[in-house]
């Protein structure tokens, strides 16, 4: 189900004017601190009544000020993960988790609770009250509570910020499954380029209350001008298909005919997936390198060289597998005489393709 958001709201000293349509899937709201992400989410949740606007998830219109339509929050069927957990202090973790369940018309199966508890690693905390949880534990329970409400729209405000890498790696696939296996639209605030790359169907970048950029994850991430957070986040996305899983823990992918080796992926052979290749992980060579530890070497031609304001430049390469972005120094670009049309090789280390960069 698609998500359609259009909002105007004035706060003293801050004006929000945001409008975007996103297809089925997960929409990441991206932007600096104070750019208005939470304000958008709160309006979608009905906790803030914007001056004007309309928010709809498919044909489920949450509100429309023109049509004088306003669903109260409890009729919006939401799963809202707040920026600051907001657990109910008088309820145990289990009761917190099941709170939305009480009000859901069709109840999620019992197995659902167990699965979510398992994924979040909060099984040993079920009888505790929130005051006795650590910061990350609270946040995990808050995630579970929202997911278990059988929502028709998931609103996630930096759900993973308080978690360590290992824990994030366990929870990210769950959001992927939600995105792909259900039709529930997800509006997801994140500062992390990794999460954007891995999860986003659509990226909406906010700047001071306005939409600065919007597009599919591939478009936005493939754009050399897009700097999610910092220049380090530049990276293109390739569509691929699993060919085989090898015994040494590597998976072989086919990206439009090009072969890629990546650390074992969960998808079965034949299944499609997408792989993000970070610009900084791509080395450009003019001759095919030999005796090198990097396993992936893609032949291609230079399409575009975009010098940045600093010492670097982003080079777009046209390879068989698709567009690949490489970040190199201006010095190297000059030394190698990189220019549109020049044939070259993109060297990509297998290990630099992190699990979180590979997603369904």
């Amino acid at each position, binding site marked *: 189900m698609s998500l359609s958001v259009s909002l105007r709201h004035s706060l003293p000293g801050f004006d929000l004017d945001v409008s975007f349509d996103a297809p089925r899937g997960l929409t990441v709201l991206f932007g600096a601190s104070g750019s208005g992400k939470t304000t958008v989410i709160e309006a979608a949740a009905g906790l803030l009544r914007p001056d004007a606007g309309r928010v709809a998830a498919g044909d489920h219109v949450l509100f429309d000020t023109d049509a004088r339509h306003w669903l109260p929050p409890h009729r*919006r069927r939401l799963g809202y993960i707040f920026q600051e957990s907001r657990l109910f*202090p008088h309820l145990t973790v289990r009761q917190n988790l099941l709170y939305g369940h009480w*009000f859901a018309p069709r109840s999620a199966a019992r197995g659902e609770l167990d699965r979510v508890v398992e994924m979040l690693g909060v099984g040993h905390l079920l009888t505790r*009250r929130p005051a006795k949880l650590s910061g990350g534990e609270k946040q995990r329970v808050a995630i579970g509570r929202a997911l278990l*409400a059988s929502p028709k729209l998931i609103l996630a405000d930096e759900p993973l910020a308080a978690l360590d890498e290992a824990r994030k790696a366990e929870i990210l696939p769950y959001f992927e499954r939600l995105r792909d296996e259900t039709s529930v639209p997800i509006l997801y605030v994140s500062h992390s380029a990794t999460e954007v790359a891995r999860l986003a169907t659509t990226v909406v970048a906010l700047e001071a209350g306005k939409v600065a950029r919007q597009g599919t994850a591939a478009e936005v991430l493939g754009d050399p001008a897009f700097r999610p957070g910092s220049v380090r986040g530049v990276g293109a996305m390739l569509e691929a298909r699993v060919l085989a899983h090898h015994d040494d823990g590597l998976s072989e992918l086919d990206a439009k005919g090009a072969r890629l080796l990546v650390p074992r992926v969960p998808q079965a052979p034949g299944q499609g997936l997408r792989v993000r290749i970070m610009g900084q992980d791509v080395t450009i060579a003019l001759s095919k390198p030999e005796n090198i530890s990097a396993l992936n070497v893609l032949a291609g031609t230079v399409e575009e060289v975009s010098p940045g304001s600093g010492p670097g430049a982003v080079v777009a390469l046209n390879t068989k597998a698709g567009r690949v972005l490489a970040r190199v120094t201006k010095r190297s670009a000059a030394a190698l005489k990189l220019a549109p049309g020049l044939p070259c090789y993109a060297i990509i280390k297998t290990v630099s393709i992190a699990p979180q960069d590979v997603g369904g």
Partner: protein
Amino acid sequence: MTDWLGPEEWQAVGLSLKVAFWATLGILPLGIFTAHVLARWDFVGKQILNGLVHLPLILPPVVTGYLLLMGFGTRGPLGGLLQEVGIVVAFRWSGAALAAGIMAFPLLVRSIRLSMEAVDPKLEQAAATLGASRFWVFVTVTLPLILPGILAGSVVAFAKAMGEFGATITFVSNIPGQTQTLPLAVYSFLQVPGGEDAAMRLVVVSVVVAMGALVLSEVLARRIARRVAGT
């Protein structure tokens, strides 16, 4: 120790407990509702409602009793109405409970309202996003969080109801076994020379009873608070 107090006095003790208990219980739902209205709603005339609630605190008790008599007496408009549904309050212990309840009402409402205003609306919002309607938000979030305030308010109300004198004697007079609560008995003793001892014995009884309620409420409140605070 039973002859420390005469049978009539023991009756007054029992009656006081009954009156205070039912007065407190009776005003609790309306008190919670009123507190909610005052804390969370916004409407014209809110200040008037607020004033009405506080009236029994401001008025001399005799006046409150007198007004009750006008309203709830057998010939009073409300009393007549009640009588038609079979409830008689005039000269009954139920009338004493009514008087005590009305006198205690502002104290109950204030306590609950203060607690309610301290509940973080963000939690109530969170509950709403999870599908809870206004009513269910109230029942599942607000109410449990204000339990300490309800308890505190109830105990103050109970104590006030145990001590209420002026409005009660005016409204339902002093009928042993029906409306002669402890304070009325104490008052009677204090009116005549030499009655101080008997009065003080009764005072000791009311103090003991009310202290019991107080300590009980403290223990309960502490348990609730500890649960929520997690310490």
